[in-house]
């Protein structure tokens, strides 16, 4: 156990998602548990501007903004905030009556990689086509990445710590983990932590495509996201958000809250190596997982399963597998990735995966990795595939790794039996 200030126990009492395949918890979890891929043709914008091979993604089904925003608020917020605010408010509703809490000790940490990119792209077109005088006066609050946590704080009237974490694809786990640290060290009593992203836009998809990061499987989108499979050829862009309510344990117990489980430990570090490529051998990721386990005070052999970052890119999955072998040994722990179902939600990813992990613990199963049709002989890990596997609930390590070399590992535990 790492030394430091006294620690408080942190319960997870509310979950919310606006994700591909599900805008409520059970629909989302059913798709993940069944391994049902969600990728399909892009409908949210005319994809003709994109190279043909990239004209597919994992979109969030339409949902009514009415319960979350009034008419003007909805018009003046980007899709990233629509998804994020809705998921966070769902999580708070799911937590039930929080009882007496000091709003100054309640806060929001939200991961967001790029902010309101679609709004920025649309207004940039207006700037060039019609001039500066036609640019929306609302563009700044629409495109700023912190619009989501700011809006959640306003809606809840929570005036405590409120930050946006911008660590690319790692930001969702950072959002949960950093929020957890505040409650753990007594700097807040209730936090909403998670992440949101809506960078399924023409510009973002063009640039991810130019990097070679996206799967080009436009003729077979359902099978494009295939984490750890030897035929993986890139990630599939997804959009969406997930949030968790993190609550001081005794407070949750005293109010009779339904407790999904708890956060047992957390770590973050950086490869300090390359702006987009993981350090060869996964040394940074391995160190991060080891620190998270030490923080939780458990051994690798205590871990029931790993919710991997598993993006379906050749590079990520290889280095993450190497890191897993370094930490746990060869094929020593069941590994799953939800990205075969949801695609890669960037800053939303780690957050919806934490949500899935608690539902997995609730049901005593590990969801399969969709489209993992066979083991990659180069990767010595036990990938859960085909169907959900019954696994006794125990500590789960959930990983997220981001461009920039940012790593995040969080250890999540089941509710007491």
């Amino acid at each position, binding site marked *: 156990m790492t030394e430091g200030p006294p620690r408080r126990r942190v319960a997870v009492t509310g979950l919310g998602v606006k994700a591909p395949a599900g805008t409520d918890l059970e629909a989302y979890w059913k798709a993940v548990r069944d391994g049902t891929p969600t990728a399909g043709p892009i409908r949210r914008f005319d994809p003709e501007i994109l190279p043909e091979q990239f004209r597919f993604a994992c979109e969030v089904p339409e949902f009514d903004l009415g319960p979350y925003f009034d008419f003007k608020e909805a*018009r003046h917020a980007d899709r990233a905030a629509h998804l994020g605010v809705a998921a966070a408010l769902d999580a708070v509703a799911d937590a039930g009556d929080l009882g007496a809490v000091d709003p100054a000790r309640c806060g929001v940490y939200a991961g967001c990689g790029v902010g309101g990119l679609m709004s920025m792209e649309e207004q940039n077109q207006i700037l060039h086509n019609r001039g500066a005088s*036609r640019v929306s*006066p609302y563009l700044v609050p629409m495109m700023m990445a912190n619009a989501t946590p700011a809006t959640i704080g306003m809606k809840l009237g929570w005036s405590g710590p409120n930050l946006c974490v911008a660590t690319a694809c790692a930001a969702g786990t950072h959002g949960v983990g950093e929020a957890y640290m505040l409650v753990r060290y007594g700097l807040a009593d209730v936090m909403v932590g998670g992440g949101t992203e809506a960078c399924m836009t023409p510009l973002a998809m063009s640039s991810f495509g130019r990097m070679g990061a996206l799967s080009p499987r436009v003729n077979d989108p359902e099978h494009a996201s295939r984490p750890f499979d030897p035929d993986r050829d890139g990630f599939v862009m997804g959009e969406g958000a997930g949030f968790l309510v993190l609550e001081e344990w005794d407070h949750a117990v005293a109010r009779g809250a339904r407790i999904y489980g708890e956060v047992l430990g957390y770590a973050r570090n950086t490869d300090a190596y390359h702006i987009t490529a993981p350090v060869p051998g996964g040394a940074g990721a391995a160190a991060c997982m080891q620190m998270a386990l030490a923080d939780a005070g458990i051994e690798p052999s205590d871990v029931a399963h790993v919710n991997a970052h598993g993006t379906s890119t050749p590079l990520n999955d290889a280095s993450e597998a190497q890191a897993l072998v370094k930490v746990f040994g060869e094929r020593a722990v069941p590994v799953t990735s939800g990205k075969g179902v949801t695609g890669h939600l960037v800053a939303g990813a780690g957050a919806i995966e934490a949500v899935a992990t608690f539902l997995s613990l609730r049901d005593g199963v590990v969801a399969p990795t969709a489209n993992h049709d066979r083991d990659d002989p180069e990767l010595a890990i036990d990938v859960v595939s085909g169907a959900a596997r019954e696994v006794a609930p125990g500590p789960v390590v959930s990983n997220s790794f981001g461009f920039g070399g940012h790593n995040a590992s969080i250890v999540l535990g089941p509710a007491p039996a």
Partner: protein
Amino acid sequence: MDRQEVLEGLADVAVELLGVDKAQVTEGARFDEDLDVDSLGLVEFVMAVEDRFDVKVPEDKLEGITTVGQAADLVLEMAGSPAEPAETGPRGPNAVSGAG
């Protein structure tokens, strides 16, 4: 373009941007108190009005404009302004159709 057309147009813009009922957008309706338009909202509203009527509303002219009726007068004044010949503007004929 007559005053009634302008009022109709302003009501349409308000419905579209603010989500209010058209019936709320009376001549005497105040932007801040009755229609809940803040400073950014006013900038957006003016922009939409300029597009709709193909007029240019200089910022200094907005001083003292608090009601829909005053805004209609300003639009008429600007439409008649020789410095901004609305009829020859590129979007003139469509922008003043008043339909909708």
